[in-house]
C-alpha cells in the first residue's frame, strides 16, 4: 500500500499517468468493441481483452515499483478503472489492481474482491465479480488480515449482474495459514472501501460516456424539423446530467487520493454515495434522451446503464454508506463538519 507518487514531482507522476491512460484508451477503443460487449453479455469470458489488459500492465498500476508494479499515483491508477468503464470493458481491472496492490505482488490472471468478510476463513462469499474467470479472490478474514483464495477448481455457484457479468458465490470453510497475510490499515471495514472506490470510479466513467452518447444523439436525432438538442427541455436535462457527471468525477478523484490513508473508508463512502446517486440520474436522463431507441438491445447504451445500475448496489449502495457517514458526522457534532470537509477534499494534503 505504498503511495508511489513523489509529492515533489507531481508533474512527472501526472505525465506518466497521462501516458498510460493514452495507451489504455487506445487499447479499449480497439478491443472493447460492440461484438466483445455483446459476447460478454451472453456470458462468454473475454480472454483476449483480458490478456491485452494484462500485457499493458494495467492491473499493476497501483502496485509499487519495488514490488514489480507500475507505481502510478492513485488518482492516475483509479483513472484507468474509470477509463475502462467508459468502454464498459467486461473485465475485473479494478478488482485485480486493488488485489495486487493490497497483496503486495503481481497475481496470476484476473482477481476478484469479496465484499463481505469471512471471519477466520469461514463463511459464504457472494456475488464475486467474474469469480468463475478469476484466478483468486481477495477476502477479508478479520482485523488487518486478508486471504488470497485460489478459485481454480473451486466449486462456485453462478449468478450474474444486471449487465450479465458473472457474480458468483463460494463457501469458505477454513483456509491454510499461508493464504493469510497481515495488511496494515485494513481494519474491520475489510475490502468494502476499496470495492466502493472502484465501483464509484466505474460509475463515473460509464456516466461520462452515457452523457457523451446522449449529447451526440440529441444533436443527431431530428424531430419537429430540428435536432432535439435545440429543445430547451433536452438541454436542461443534459445540463443536469453534466452536473452529476462533474460531481462524481470530482469526488472519485478525492477518494482516490485517500488511497493508503486512514481516510479511505470515509472518502470512498462519500464517493460511492455521490456517484451512485449521480449514476441513477444520469442513466435515467440518458434513456429519456435516447427514448425508445436506447431501450432496445440493439443500441449500445444499455452496456453502460445496466452496469451503472449494478455498480451502484455493489460494495454498499448509497444509503448504506450514507448511514455510516451520517453516524460519524453526527457523533462528531455540527461544528466538526466543515473542518472535516476541508480536510477530506484538500488535494495533495496527504502526499
Amino acid at each position, binding site marked *: 500500500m505504498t503511495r508511489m507518487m513523489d509529492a515533489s514531482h507531481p508533474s512527472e507522476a501526472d505525465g506518466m499517468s497521462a501516458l498510460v491512460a493514452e495507451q489504455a484508451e487506445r487499447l479499449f477503443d480497439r478491443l472493447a468493441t460492440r461484438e466483445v460487449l455483446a459476447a460478454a453479455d451472453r456470458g462468454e469470458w473475454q480472454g483476449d481483452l483480458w490478456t491485452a489488459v494484462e500485457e499493458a500492465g494495467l492491473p499493476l498500476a497501483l502496485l509499487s515499483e519495488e514490488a514489480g508494479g507500475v507505481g502510478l499515483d492513485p488518482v492516475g491508477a483509479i483513472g484507468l478503472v474509470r477509463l475502462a468503464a467508459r468502454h464498459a470493458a467486461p473485465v475485473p481491472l479494478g478488482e485485480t489492481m486493488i488485489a495486487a496492490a493490497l497483496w503486495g505482488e503481481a497475481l496470476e490472471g484476473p482477481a476478484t474482491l469479496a465484499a463481505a468478510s469471512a471471519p477466520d476463513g469461514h463463511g459464504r462469499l457472494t456475488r464475486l465479480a467474474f469469480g468463475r474467470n478469476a484466478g483468486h479472490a481477495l477476502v477479508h478474514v478479520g482485523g488487518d488480515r486478508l486471504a488470497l483464495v485460489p478459485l481454480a477448481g473451486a466449486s462456485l455457484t453462478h449468478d450474474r449482474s444486471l449487465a450479465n457479468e458473472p457474480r458468483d458465490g463460494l463457501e469458505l470453510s477454513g483456509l491454510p495459514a499461508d493464504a493469510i497475510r497481515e495488511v496494515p490499515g485494513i481494519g474491520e471495514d475489510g475490502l468494502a472501501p476499496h470495492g466502493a472506490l472502484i465501483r464509484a470510479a466505474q460509475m463515473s466513467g460509464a456516466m461520462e460516456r452515457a452523457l457523451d452518447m446522449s449529447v451526440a444523439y440529441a*444533436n443527431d436525432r431530428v424531430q419537429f424539423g430540428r435536432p432535439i438538442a435545440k429543445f430547451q427541455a433536452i438541454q*436542461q436535462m*443534459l445540463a443536469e446530467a453534466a452536473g452529476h457527471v462533474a460531481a462524481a468525477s*470530482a469526488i472519485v478523484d478525492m477518494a482516490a487520493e485517500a488511497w493508503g490513508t486512514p481516510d479511505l473508508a470515509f472518502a470512498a463512502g462519500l464517493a460511492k*454515495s455521490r456517484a451512485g446517486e449521480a449514476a441513477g440520474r444520469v442513466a435515467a436522463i440518458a434513456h429519456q434522451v435516447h427514448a425508445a431507441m436506447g431501450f432496445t438491445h440493439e443500441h449500445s447504451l444499455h452496456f453502460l446503464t445496466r452496469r451503472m445500475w449494478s455498480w451502484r448496489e455493489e460494495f454498499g449502495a448509497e444509503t448504506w454508506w450514507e448511514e*455510516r457517514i*451520517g453516524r460519524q458526522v*453526527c457523533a462528531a457534532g455540527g461544528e466538526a463538519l466543515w473542518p472535516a470537509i476541508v480536510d477530506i477534499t484538500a488535494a495533495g494534503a496527504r502526499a
Partner: protein
Amino acid sequence: MQAFRFAGARLPAEAETARAEVRAFLRKDREVGGWEPHRTTWTSFDADFSARAGAAGFIATGFPKEFGGKGAPMLVRFAIAEEMLAAGAPCGAHWVAERQSGPQILRHGSDRAKAEILPRIAAGECFFGIGMSEPGSGSDLAAVRTRATRDGDGWRINGSKIWTSNAHRAHYLIALVRTGPAGESRHAGLTQFVIDLSKPGLTTRPIHDLAGNHEFNEVFFDDYYVPDDMRVGGEGDGWSMVTAELAFERAGPDRYLSDIRLLVSLIDEVGGSPDRMEAAEIGRMTAHLAGLRRMSASVSSMLDGGASPITQAALVKDVGTGFERMVPEVSRRIRRTEPGPDAPGDYAQSLAETVLRAPSFTLRGGTQEILRGMIARGLGLR
C-alpha cells in the same frame, strides 16, 4: 468527448495559514460582535463586522499592497471566504465589493478610482451593490435600457436598476448601462460605471422581500452625472467584462455554502445518536458537500492559473445552488421541529430563515435555467 474535469486543487501553504488565522479571528469575533451564526449569512449586512475583518487583514488580500491588500494569490481569498461562510459570519456588507466590484476596478478602473476606492474596500469600510438588472432586463441582461450620454468630460445617466442589494446602505454601485447601439449581437454598446450613491441625481426605493427583509432596492437615475474617470473599462466593453465577472462570481463557495449553518444546526439538533433515516440523509448531504467543495476549489484554482473555465463555473453554481435548495427540504423530512423565526433553539430559527431565503438561491447571479443553458452550450447542444 465533453468531460469537464475538475482537477484536484492544491491550495498554497499561505492559504492554509490564512485559514487557521481567520478561524481564530472568527471564534473571537463572534463574542465581540455578538452575531449568531445560525441566523447570518453572506447576505447579512453588518458594517461593524466588515470593519473588524478589514482591520484584521481578511478582506481583499489579493489587492496589491499599495491598494491595501497583501498581493496574495486568489486561493488565499478563497480559503478566507469559505471559512467566513462556514462560520456563518455576517459578511454581507463587504461581500460584493470584495468578490467582484473591487477586482473589476483593479483590472479596468482609472488610477483615481483605484486610489480612492480600493484601500477602503480592503479596510472593510466601502460597500458595493450590483447594477446589472433592470425592470425590463432580468435574465436577458443584454436588454439593458438605462443610458449614459456624453456631457463634457463626463456622462449623464437616465434610467433605473432593480434588485440592487444594499443600495440604501452601500457607497457605490457598478452599473451596466447603454452608451451606444446594441448591434446585431445585442452585446455591443454597453459600458460600466462606478456610481457614487452619495451624489445627486439618484432616488432609491426599497423593495422588501417575501420575508419582509429590506435588502433589495430600485434605483432611479435622473440626469445623474458621472465623471469619465469613473468609467470601468473601455466604452462598449461592458458585456465582455460582465460575463467575465459572472464567471468569477459563479464558482465561489457562496454558491453552495449559503445554508451550511442550517446543516450544522441540524446535526446538533439530531445529536450523536441519529436514527437510520437521520444518519442517511445527513450522510447524503455530506457527500454532496464534499463533491462541491472539491469542484469549487478546483475552479478557483483554474481561475487563479489564468484559465477561464466558464462551463465548469456554471456547473458549480448549478449543482451548488441545487444543494442549497435541498438542505432545508431534507431537514424537514428528518425532524419534526417546526420552523419559527422566534422559536427557541438554533435549528428552528435557522430553518425558518433558510426556508424563506431558499427561493433566491437558484435565482441570484443567473437563474438555474440560464446556467443550464450555458452548460448546454458548453456541451455542444446549442
